[in-house]
């Protein structure tokens, strides 16, 4: 799932200067699960903006609502009759949702209300961690189900590097918390699976054309197209 976190109120306010009628638009998809951009968070942000509004003596009109998803046109289209009521939208969807909104409603400024962070999992309530960088060519079968592209700070394919200490990555001291060494995890897991032989062969080059370096990516499935 895509994880995001709320932008600081001051940053959002700075975007909204000069706009009178504002829609705070939540998304009930991923960002609702990570409690950054669902209906609840849209309500909280709208309330905060109203309070700020009162304090500043402004007469802005601030509304909120939330769509099932902002990454599907059919849900975005639900706003068609309402958009004339707003001068600007703060979208709490991930970066994809914000952009898709902007593509459909080209006359309206659409501002991001969250920072989109990563593809990850819920460790426990209130704690989310990254698992995947969407590199486009999954190698988890080779690496014991643990991704070196994502879990190793140096994306090493033949790790661990010389900075791995007691199972922790060398960047732990820099980020101020323990970061697991991805290759230590891979090694322990391969041992458990009896697949340590996989480690012996040097890995070949990663094909980054399937990742961030191939330009915007696209999937076409003729079998499911109308």
């Amino acid at each position, binding site marked *: 799932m895509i994880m995001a976190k709320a932008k600081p109120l001051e940053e959002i306010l700075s975007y909204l200067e000069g706009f009178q009628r504002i829609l705070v638009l939540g998304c009930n998809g991923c960002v609702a699960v990570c409690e950054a951009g669902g209906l609840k968070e849209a309500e909280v942000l709208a309330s905060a903006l109203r309070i700020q509004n009162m304090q500043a003596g402004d007469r802005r009109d601030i509304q909120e609502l939330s769509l099932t998803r902002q990454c599907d046109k059919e849900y975005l289209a639900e706003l068609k009759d309402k958009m004339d009521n707003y001068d600007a939208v703060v979208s709490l969807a991930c970066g994809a949702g914000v952009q898709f909104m902007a593509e459909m409603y080209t006359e309206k400024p659409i501002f991001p209300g969250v920072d989109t962070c990563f593809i990850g999992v819920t460790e426990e309530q209130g704690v989310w961690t990254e698992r995947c960088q969407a590199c486009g060519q999954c190698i988890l079968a080779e690496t014991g189900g643990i991704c070196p592209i994502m879990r190793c*700070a*140096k*994306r*090493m*394919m*033949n*790790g*661990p*590097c*010389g*900075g*791995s*200490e*007691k*199972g922790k990555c*060398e*960047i732990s*001291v*820099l*980020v101020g918390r323990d970061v697991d*060494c991805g*290759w*230590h995890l891979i*090694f*322990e897991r391969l041992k458990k699976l009896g697949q*340590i032989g996989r*480690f*012996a*062969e*040097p*890995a*070949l*080059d*990663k094909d*980054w054309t399937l990742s961030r370096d191939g330009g915007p990516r696209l999937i076409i499935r003729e079998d499911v197209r109308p």
Partner: protein
Amino acid sequence: MKETITPSRLEKILAAGHWAVTSECGPPRDGRPEIIEKKADLIGDYVDAINVTDNQTAVVRQCSLAACIRIKLKGLEPVLQMVTRDRNRIALQSDLLGAASYGIHNVLCLTGDHQRFGDHASSTNVFDMDSTRLIQTVKMMRDDGRLLSGHEMHEGRPQMFIGAAENPFADPFEIRVMRLAKKVKAGAQFIQTQCIYNMPKFKLWMKLLRDEGLHEKVAILAGLTPMKNVGMAKYMKNRVPGIDVPDDIIKRLAGVPKEKQADEGIQICLEQIEELKQEEGIRGFHVMAIEWEEKVPEIVERAGLYPRPSVN
């Protein structure tokens, strides 16, 4: 004398069965030409080859290749250190070709410290490949005359003696010899180790690599960094990832007055060299006197490794 495959002086020294001695110079954080020349002058006669670090600890410095060319033009032998942190496979191969054009015959293939350690912590990293793949790349360019793209070089192949680093003190310990084996399989011909302080652990690593026969396939140069004082020892123990400084080293340095600690650090280094000369598979010494290059001649001399042998 074993057969050599490159014009590298370092390779010839090792092939002739001599102890090899290497050291390193860190380029300055500005464009002055004389700094690297002075450092090279200081140690040139006392070592077989001079490593030039590549933006070590991710701090921007004069580029390793330019400094290597400077050393080469002085008639000394550089070891081009290359990290994969800052350059993709296009730039790495390009720099290797540039190095080849100046007759640089040694390369040390490294992944590099994470950029967050350095002075540009918010920069992006590259890591298009890691050290193991860089080793393979140099070997492919040299032996097959091919670039990673498949482009064939009919002339001007890099003639490089290929080195790698290994840290016997990083975790998990049991993977360290396997990882060395992988680097050897990729094409590494010499290894410069992380600086050694924990001798029992280092000897255990040597035993494990001998059990795999790796000492016959790759020349291990023991990495040594003399301690300037007890403060440095504590800093390295607590703050530098992957360095293992046992308490007895710290106690020993702390046990002498401050003005004698540098001498004690040199003494410890010399004792380590003597002990390591007895260790089967150790083929030489890589003396990394960090910002203390002026001590390298003394260490080499007192360790009985001077004068350096001449080879053709």
